[in-house]
């Protein structure tokens, strides 16, 4: 989830920009209506102080709080903090003549662009009404002929190892006899002869997605790091470097090497548990990041290793990767630099040719392939790219898993799926389709307080998450946020165990790629073919 935007004010669209654009009269209606119950409002001004978008203001003369609907982004900070529950935010009801083609959203975007002449920017994953395939995949359960397992009574294994697995393993068997008190005893020792490639050990098959320092605040990173440490999982630095303060969480950190190479040095690579080369991101495949200079504070400049106040531009491609061979060179340079002790991941966006790309990545030497689907989130991306580029992660997982199996190289890399995982059932389905683990980004942010207002790119996150403003950053207490994240991971892990138990499976290893336990419902024949699952109603 790399930060920010392509050229802010000139090309991006915000209310402020429209004001600056010197339009006589904006044609935009507000998106939301803020209703204040006068019987409940006590004029305590909490809402006024909490809104970074200045939607609320206090009129001293009238002794009244006023609200400018046009500034409201529906982050619901005011409604949450209001001690009397006086505030409700609803969709603005302006009857723009109903039209299936020219919807209100389309019209508003046209007005915005005609008033600013800019690229439309947005944050988080796409909100477009694409079919969510997860909701059309059904899980199996054990009945009569095979027993289900009660996870509260019997051990369930969620531990997952990410990394390349050897083609075969060799043991040395040594048996020795010795004389016991009355009889001869025999012991057998097994010694593993094959040298295992480095592995990441996860207590549950979930990781926190890459979110960079710059896109998110330091407090948010602290929370992710603490939670990863407590849950025995990993968080990912994104491409913004790793603040020195978080080096102590190194064993739970995956560091990213992206096209901008921000914050990459030998300490950065050494301290991490794994290194990830970021080639693409689900929300903006083919697009680099842009952190505007205003957000490059002293701390961020030190972490990213760039001068304060300069724009942090991540080029769209890696300028040293133009082929699989080039990628292989970078993979082995990093492996060489880290002494072949850490698994190396390559993150790509799920695009049309993903199966072949993943195969190339595995052959190039990656230990982990991370695939970010159509619904992957971002701190800032052009709306058109976010909403129209890529393929759903569901199809990408099965396409990649099938391809790697066909080629006999599935064991050479683990697959991490990313992009819009909403709950534990999605995770179970992804693993059954062939993923080893999943990255969760948006779900983690929501756990910390995010309300998906999609205004990350403005840097004014009222929840203290996607901001560097010292007034706003304090709003996220990393201790509380870490607690919430730990609860989320625990809850999902319990649920995964519960679902697996119902299926009669006691280890996540037995679930992986187990597409026989999935059925498609209301899916097209082609979708079923790519997912390689049977339609609901068809037997084993």
């Amino acid at each position, binding site marked *: 989830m790399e930060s920010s935007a392509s050229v802010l004010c000139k090309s991006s669209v915000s209310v402020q920009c429209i004001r600056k654009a010197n339009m006589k009269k904006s044609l935009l209606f507000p998106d939301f209506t803020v209703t204040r119950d006068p019987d409940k409002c006590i004029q305590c001004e909490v809402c006024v102080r909490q809104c970074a978008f200045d939607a609320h203001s206090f009129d001293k003369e009238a002794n009244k709080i006023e609200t400018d609907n046009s500034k409201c982004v529906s982050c619901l900070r005011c409604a949450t903090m209001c001690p009397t529950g006086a505030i409700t935010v609803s969709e603005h009801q302006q009857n723009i003549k109903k039209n299936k083609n020219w919807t209100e959203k389309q019209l508003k975007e046209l007005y915005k662009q005609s008033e600013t002449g800019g690229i439309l920017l947005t944050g988080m994953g796409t909100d477009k009404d694409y079919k969510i395939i997860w909701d059309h995949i059904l899980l199996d359960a054990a009945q009569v002929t095979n027993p289900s397992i009660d996870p509260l009574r019997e051990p369930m294994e969620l531990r997952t190892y990410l990394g390349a697995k050897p083609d075969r393993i060799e043991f040395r068997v040594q048996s020795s006899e010795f004389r016991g008190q009355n009889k001869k005893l025999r012991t057998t020792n097994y010694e593993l002869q094959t040298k295992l490639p480095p592995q990441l050990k996860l207590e549950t098959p979930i990781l926190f997605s890459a979110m960079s320092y710059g896109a998110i605040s330091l407090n948010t990173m602290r929370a992710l790091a603490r939670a990863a440490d407590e849950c025995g999982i990993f968080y990912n630095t994104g491409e913004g470097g790793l603040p020195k303060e978080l080096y102590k969480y190194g064993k739970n950190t995956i560091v990213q090497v992206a096209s901008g190479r921000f914050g990459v040095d030998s300490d950065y690579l050494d301290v991490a548990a794994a290194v990830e080369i970021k080639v693409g991101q689900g929300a903006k495949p083919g697009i680099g990041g842009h952190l505007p200079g205003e957000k490059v504070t002293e701390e961020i400049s030190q972490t990213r290793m760039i001068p304060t106040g300069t724009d942090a531009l991540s080029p769209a491609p890696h300028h040293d990767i133009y082929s699989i061979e080039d990628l292989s060179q970078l993979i082995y340079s990093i492996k060489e630099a880290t002494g072949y002790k850490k698994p190396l991941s390559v993150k790509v966006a799920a695009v049309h040719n993903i199966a072949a790309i993943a195969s190339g990545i595995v052959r190039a030497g990656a230990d982990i392939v991370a695939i970010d689907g159509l619904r992957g989130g971002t701190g800032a991306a052009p709306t058109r790219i976010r909403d129209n580029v890529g393929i759903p992660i569901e199809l990408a997982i099965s396409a990649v898993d099938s391809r790697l199996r066909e080629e006999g190289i599935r064991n050479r890399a683990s697959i991490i799926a990313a992009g819009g995982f909403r709950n534990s059932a999605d995770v179970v389905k992804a693993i059954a389709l062939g993923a080893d683990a999943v990255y969760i980004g948006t779900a983690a942010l929501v756990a910390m307080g995010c309300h998906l207002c999609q205004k990350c790119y403005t840097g004014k996150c009222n929840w203290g998450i996607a901001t560097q403003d010292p007034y706003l950053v*304090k709003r996220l207490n990393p201790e509380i946020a870490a607690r919430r994240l730990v609860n989320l991971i625990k809850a999902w892990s319990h649920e995964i165990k519960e679902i697996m138990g119902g299926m009669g499976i006691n280890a996540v290893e037995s679930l992986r790629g187990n597409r026989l336990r999935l059925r498609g419902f209301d899916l097209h024949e082609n979708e079923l073919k790519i997912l390689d699952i049977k339609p609901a109603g068809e037997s084993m």
Partner: protein
Amino acid sequence: MKKIYFNEEYCMACRLCEIACLVAHSKSKKIIKAYKEEFPSLTPRLIIEQKGPLSFAIQCRHCKDAPCVEACVTGAMKRGKKTGAVSHDREKCVGCWMCIMSCPFGVILMDTKEKKVATKCDLCEDVREPACVDACPNEALVYKEVKGSEKK
């Protein structure tokens, strides 16, 4: 003894603590009623300091060698033998405000709405957790025992 401590790193000056304090010391204890009907007669018992992004809420520290107790001419300000907390008796208070003069933290406030008296944090005697601590959404106020803090 258990005291209220602030953590300025997470205080965002939302002032929900102040609101909770007012309500907890109102007659009705109901937020809307307190504000709509009793408001002018209510005084918060904590102060919020704010400069730029830095802010924190502070209330009576219940000092071990409390200057306010020394300064009080009527014995209205006294230390509870069991709790160790410094308490203030409105009935005995004559409003000379020597306690306000002597308080090194400036957390004793004037209450002139009825009879002229001093007013300060009473740690919400009857409840498990003071109202301000309970209301803080970001755990910037915590009610805890810190060992060794008594000596200072």
